[in-house]
């Protein structure tokens, strides 16, 4: 019963599409913080969950939302998996779709 409690994963794999890049984020670290630490040009601005610039779509896996995304994102988008990377920590390994800055035209 307590096995999972004491053996919590300390980091999670994040696969980023398009491009299929993989980074690792620590438990409790936000997706954006992990991406920036790994040198990725993840779009962002305020980093406090108010501008929406870091939005991305979770394709697989579970995140823990740190705030209510409905203030910034459309509820329809939230229901279809869009999250704010600066306010999302991983609960499992995840696959995520985001348009990194260097990929933009």
């Amino acid at each position, binding site marked *: 019963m307590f096995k999972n409690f004491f053996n919590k994963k300390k980091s999670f794999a994040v696969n980023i599409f398009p491009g299929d890049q993989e980074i690792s984020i620590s438990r409790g670290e936000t997706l954006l913080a992990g991406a920036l630490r790994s040198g990725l040009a993840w779009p962002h*601005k*305020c*980093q*406090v*969950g*108010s*501008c929406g610039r870091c939005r991305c779509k979770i394709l697989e896996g579970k995140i823990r939302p*740190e*705030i*209510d995304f*409905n*203030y*910034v994102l*459309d*509820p329809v988008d939230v229901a279809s998996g869009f999250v704010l990377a600066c*306010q999302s920590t991983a609960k499992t390994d995840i696959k995520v779709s985001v348009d990194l800055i260097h990929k933009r035209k």
Partner: protein
Amino acid sequence: MKKLYVNVRYLIVPVMTVTTIIGLFIGGIYAWIGVFLFGINTILDTLTKDIHLKADFDEDGNSYGIKIFQYSVMYLMLPIFIILQLALANNLYKFIYLEVLEISELVGSILSCGLWAGLGIIYGHELSHNKREGFNVSRAIMALSGASHFTYAHVYNHHLDLGHEDDPATAPRGRNVYAHAWLSHAGQSKFSYDLENAKLKKLNKSFFSLQNKWLLGYLYSLPSIILFVWSGGLVGVIALFIVWVISNFLLEALNFMGHYGLIRETGKPVEHRHSWDNDNLFTSWFFIEIGRQCDHHVRGETYFWELDDVKGPNYGIGYFSLFVLALIPSLFRKFTQKHLDNWDQNYATGAEKEIVNKYYVNELLQKASK
């Protein structure tokens, strides 16, 4: 030893708030101790105006700040502020119903409570940048001052629209602190109202929903209102009103001093130059580094003990000293003018200079030609 020094130095407000509470319970001249301490702090702040420190990190770049200790203190401030209100309510009861308290003691109690409830709002601010329990503690602390809307408005409005006319907390040049306190308070509440309204409409929920954080925030202030009505009737309501006016005035004075006259072009990122730093020794320690606004607004979720000097615009004096100047608008404008001129010349971008010329220089020329 260094760890102890880095962490203990931020205990000035908790210690002084507890001292104020004890003063209120003892009564007599001690009911004024909160006002006395405010005065002492102004002197200490002025004396240390030339001492500026950097954030402390070890050789590996790790901070000396102990997160669990600092958070325990911040969370502990919620019951301390509740006890502060209870102490004032106790004195009100003694004044109204037991008739064992002099009017001078009651006045001292109200002013002491208002000042320290206001100074304690720094914890409400710090915790507003946290999630879940921290955010909720922030809301509860702010609710004690009738300002629960602040927590949402600060994150979703101030941090996004800083230096822009859409941010009620940024004071344009020429505005005085008295006008700003009201305009900023009302503006942030309006923003929070609109934010909730928009969210509830998107979710197809009624305005009178438990998800309406604006409404709930004001309901969190209800226990304070009930306490003061019970302990002092109409006088109690007046006392609470004065406490709220003082504490909100201090909160908005911090916003006023943090961004007065600074400008940011629409859509451009917030940078260090869009805030004024106030980081002399006493201000830094007393206000748990809230004066390091330049760094805070770029790294909004950085722990206060890790915020550092980023060579942004700096008034060169601390918050207490600047607050005294702000109370006399003509003096404040005179003092800040040279700093604003320096900002225009050395910090502003071309587009920001154009905004200065459009809104301020042209206006001055028009006034001069009349």
